[in-house]
């Protein structure tokens, strides 16, 4: 049943003439799920989002959103979608309040208390003209209009760009609240850290193709740690080089530095044969994981080209 999925794409493909947008993207986002849609700039995230919203028409393949056809059912569908564009530009010169009143009226009426509650939460002054606002404040207006009508599906393109860290935390709390209320969230980002605390799953897109879809926890298991061990006496790097998951071993005197992928057990067992003075292990950085598994492993050239 398609209606179990908030977003369902099958072989979705978009070319702009000869230029590749996305190619054969098949993706399923369950109702009530938070999906982080990750990839470097230019990978096709915004193209995918615009196809889901019927701003673009697919070259081939199809998309179903909330069980509806993005083109045929656009009016009914957009009533249930909250959309935050990646490049925010607001039509007109009004104050944030008047602009939000327009969005509310256009969506068939939104309780004003809902708007003021969100504005308060994000510390947004509704009486100021949007044009005169900083990037961060404009982003807040964008978030308020996306969340204000409690849509079944939130499509957020780079939602935290321009927000200070405090507001990023508030935004993530809003996403968690949305999930608790049964809303589906589809948010794109080029920074993994941004979605790792809220997303259930992460879809990674590179060069217009879906590179992987993973649960966030399983990404963590693959984490790469950098480990530094201080021994009492100098050690032989060859001993450690051969251990499974251990690489980039360097030894200077009694200090050993290496990176470990996966479980730490083999390294610990080997280190225990010597007298250990100190050990430092950096937190698993999902950013590193993300890059190493999906960019570096299949050629760094791809990633740098896609980022252009």
């Amino acid at each position, binding site marked *: 049943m398609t209606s179990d999925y908030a977003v369902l794409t099958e072989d979705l493909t978009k070319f702009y003439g000869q230029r590749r947008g996305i190619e054969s993207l098949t993706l399923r986002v369950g109702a009530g799920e938070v999906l982080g849609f990750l990839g470097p700039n230019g990978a096709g995230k915004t193209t995918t989002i615009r196809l889901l919203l019927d701003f673009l028409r697919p070259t081939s393949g199809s998309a179903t959103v909330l069980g509806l056809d993005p083109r045929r059912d*656009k009016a009914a569908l957009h009533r249930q979608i909250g959309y935050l564009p990646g490049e925010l530009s*607001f039509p*007109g010169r009004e104050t944030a309040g008047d602009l939000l009143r327009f969005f509310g009226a256009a969506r068939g009426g939104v309780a004003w208390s809902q708007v003021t509650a969100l504005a308060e939460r994000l510390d947004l002054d509704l009486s100021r003209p949007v044009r005169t606002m900083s990037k961060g404040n404009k982003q807040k207006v964008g978030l308020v209009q996306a969340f204000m009508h409690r849509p079944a599906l939130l499509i957020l393109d780079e939602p935290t760009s321009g927000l200070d860290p405090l507001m990023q935390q508030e935004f993530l709390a809003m996403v968690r609240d949305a999930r608790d209320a049964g809303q589906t969230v589809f948010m794109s980002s080029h920074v993994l850290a941004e979605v790792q605390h809220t997303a259930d799953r992460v879809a990674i897109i590179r060069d217009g193709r879906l590179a992987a879809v993973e649960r966030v926890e399983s990404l963590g298991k693959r984490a790469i740690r950098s480990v530094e061990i201080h021994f009492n006496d100098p050690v032989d790097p060859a001993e450690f080089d051969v251990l499974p998951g251990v690489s980039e071993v360097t030894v200077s005197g009694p200090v050993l530095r290496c990176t470990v992928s996966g479980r730490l057990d083999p390294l610990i067992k080997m280190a225990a044969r010597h007298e250990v003075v100190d050990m430092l292990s950096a937190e698993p950085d999902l950013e590193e994981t993300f890059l190493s598994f999906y960019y570096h492993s299949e050629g760094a050239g791809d990633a740098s080209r896609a980022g252009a």
Partner: protein
Amino acid sequence: MLPALVRKTWRDDRRAVLGWAVGVAAFTTIYTSFYRQFQGAAELKQEALPQGMLDFLGIADMFSPAGYLQATIFSLVGPLLVLMCAITLTARTIARPEEDGGMELLLANPLSRTAFAGQRLAATGTAVTVVAAIPLLLLFVVVPRVGMDIPLSNVAAAGVGLIALVWCFTGIAFLAGAVSGRRSSVLAVTGALAVAAYMANAISGMSEGWHWVRWLSPFHYFIGTDPLHTGWHPVELLILVAVGAATALAGVWAFDRRDVGV
């Protein structure tokens, strides 16, 4: 209540519409109010210029009240003003938001593509019509007051003709914007067509061999029938309205079928 998008379009355009309305009103009032003072000068102007030049400028005669009104309001500057207003405002319906990025949030409203295009066009079309109707409304007051001896029915025919001309070019401008999504295309295509149409009508009067080209020119259907002397010409006016309606519908159709904001 009117659709939110229509009200929003009017709110965003109100400064521009007000500016054009004031300009067109001032132009109409100033030229016609000084009818008596201009009379003497007009005779001199007409004697000084060769007939071919007068034809090109669209000046039939400046002695008669109808000739004076046609020369001042309906021949060149009047249509030019209202057409510039129509073209620039129509460029804001689709092309401008598409270029400056505001389109994404406008198009995210729960409306079908055709309803979106239709509401944008309806809002702007109304604003443009109001501006284009200003000469008509003012002349109803000014013409009797300054003692111009023209039947008000003929003034109405010319004034309505101006509105029909504006509808014609509004449709063309809307089509250009709906297809291209670019303001420069709207201004270039519609501006060039308007100039060509004006020239075609002017040249056709000067040379027998070129007589036929006026049938291609919207200006012929607007003023070539000489409404200030001869009154209403409904067929010609309907042709202008039909061109405007057909191009507007084609624009809605095209906008429904293309990628937006690429």
